[in-house]
């Protein structure tokens, strides 16, 4: 496939931005929790699920999106949100629990909602899958050619919502692309201990839809497969299921001792870090040179830094504002 250069570069830039964002979150997450780790303490309390290593899964669809396309993501949402172009300042502010955040500090890192771009995520496994089906219904009703993308982990593929969503989307021939991020683990449980067959993409036949396996953690491979799946959905030919083999480089959540994965496994995994591999390829193919890469690095770091600064400079919400936003138009009465 002949991929426009700006797409190749855009994907690389976005990968770098994602990684940088998560590195910074990670630093700040631990900054004031050590030496005695306390999940409730610090600048960023609570659970933190980072997606380092899974960037290809997120950026591969990016060049194919258009305004209004909907995405539902998971408890591990940052890479996808950034790839879709969710406002980085507001996203950072939400993670830091600030009034200027996407949800005024009410949602937090697992509950990022944006109207433009059309993004949502959730803390419950499989919860976003039916929502994507519904977004696609709305597009059909309104007569647009928008599509809905639903991200989920390989662990989620054994949740009932997976089955119901794929059946509905196929039955009604809706413009949805289901994207399984197969990082081989659901917390500590390896895929072989959770899934009766090796590849979830083979489950597509249970719904009469195309199932495609992307065997490499490579943005270009993802780009190609997602291009076809999104185009198919956009032209009204119905949903697809795409499974992408990827790597979660860090623990399930920050603070996870990650003792369930062997040291060899982790070493091997880190050696195939997709940003390094893809960057080397772009260098080798002459798409970028060392100087380009350095300036991308700088630009992305700057974007991230600006967002983090915005967030940290933003005020916390007033405590009593906890009572607002339960219902549109009124506060809860105490």
């Amino acid at each position, binding site marked *: 496939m002949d991929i426009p250069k700006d797409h190749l570069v855009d994907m690389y830039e976005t990968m770098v931005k994602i990684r940088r964002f998560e590195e910074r979150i990670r630093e700040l997450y631990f900054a004031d929790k050590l030496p005695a780790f306390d999940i409730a303490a610090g600048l960023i309390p609570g659970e933190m699920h980072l997606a380092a290593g899974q960037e290809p899964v997120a950026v591969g669809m990016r060049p194919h999106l258009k305004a209004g396309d*909907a995405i*539902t993501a998971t408890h591990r949402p940052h890479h996808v949100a950034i790839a879709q172009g969710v406002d980085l300042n507001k996203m950072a502010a939400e993670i830091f629990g600030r009034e200027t*955040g*996407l*949800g*005024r*500090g*009410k*949602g937090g890192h697992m*509950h990022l*909602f*944006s*109207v433009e771009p*059309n993004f*949502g995520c*959730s803390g*419950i496994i499989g*919860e976003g*899958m*039916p*929502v*994507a*089906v*519904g*977004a*696609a*219904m*709305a*597009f059909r*009703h*309104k007569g647009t050619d928008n599509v*809905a993308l639903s991200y989920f982990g390989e662990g989620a593929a054994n949740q*009932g*919502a997976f089955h*119901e*969503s794929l*059946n*509905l989307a196929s*039955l009604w021939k809706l413009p949805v692309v289901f994207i399984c991020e197969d990082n081989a683990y659901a917390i500590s449980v390896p895929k072989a201990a959770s899934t009766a067959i090796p590849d979830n993409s083979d489950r597509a036949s249970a719904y009469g839809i195309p199932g495609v396996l992307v065997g490499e953690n490579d943005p270009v491979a993802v780009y190609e497969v997602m291009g076809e799946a999104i185009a198919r959905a956009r032209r009204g030919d119905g949903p697809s299921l795409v499974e992408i083999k990827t790597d979660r480089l860090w623990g399930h959540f920050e603070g996870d001792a990650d003792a369930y994965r062997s040291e060899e496994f982790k070493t091997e995994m880190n050696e195939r870090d997709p940003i390094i591999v893809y960057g080397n390829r772009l260098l080798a193919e002459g798409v970028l040179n060392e100087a380009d890469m350095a300036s991308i690095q700088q630009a992305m770091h700057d974007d991230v830094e600006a967002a983090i600064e915005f967030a940290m400079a933003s005020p916390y919400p007033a405590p009593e504002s906890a009572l*607002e*936003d*339960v*219902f*549109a*138009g009124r506060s*809860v009465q105490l």
Partner: protein
Amino acid sequence: MTTTTERKLTTQKAIAEGIATEMAEDDSVFVMGEDVGTYGGIFGATEGLLDKFGPERIMDTPISETGFIGAAVGAAINGMRPIVELMFVDFFGVCMDQIYNNMAKIHYFSGGNVKVPMVLTTAVGGGYSDAGQHSQTLWGMFAHLPGMKVVVPSNPYDAKGLMIAAIRDDNPVVYMFHKGVLGLGWMTNNPRATGAVPEGPYEVPIGKAAVAREGTDLTIVTIGLSVHKALDAAEDLEKTGISAEVLDLRSLVPLDREAIVASVEKTHRLLVVDEDYQSFGMSGEVITTAVQGAFDYLDAPPMRLATPDIPIPYSHPLETWALPSVERITEAASTLLVAG
């Protein structure tokens, strides 16, 4: 309640009419659920709508409640105003995550940026030997969980007006219709299941209780089919010289606490009648509201008559004994009158 027309409808037809009225006005309203199309809804809540609006807007679904209720959430946040039917409330267990964790919380999580304007309709209630997985009301549970309004009409006028209000509301509304107030041809019905309903659109405001009957000696607070049982009991009580006020809550979220307190301040005695399970539910909440709001007015401890904490039994004599009845209400009211 003043009515502007003498045309009479059953509650079931009033619900369907409420939906039709809004669908005609607003393209973004559509209906999804099991057997809502050709069948018209197992309890007739969507009767005639398929013919009027076609299969694109009246959609039969597979038995995939998580899938299609979740899809309604997705459609709602993308500009539609779905009405989605959970055939019996008892089935909530297969799809509650989409209801309570998603539909009810997205507006909050988004800090008010994302609205979820949808109506979840569902049939509630027992009394016809449908046993423990088809006879529950469960409204106490829905009301306990934040982020969704919960309405329970008891008559045709309210049914249409609350449906229209629910569809127009920018928030998720759980609309529970009790099978016993619908006026279905195949069920024993209270005469009040048929009543005057204006032809055009109108709203019954969500969150306002109605004084279904005025009285001075005690207040009976209730909802759904039990409103009619309480009214029947009040007639019996009147014969023995007891004047009972009957308050039809009409919605549990928001709960009209002012109306409860005002009535108890007037009558000084409170009986709560609830077809839902007794403990940790509506009856305790209403009593607490009265005790906190009208402590000094109470002449006796508030009483409650609810379904005991047992699964709804199948056999007719067991079920009849377990659910609130006119006789039991009358009896409880009489006891309450001499207590304190």
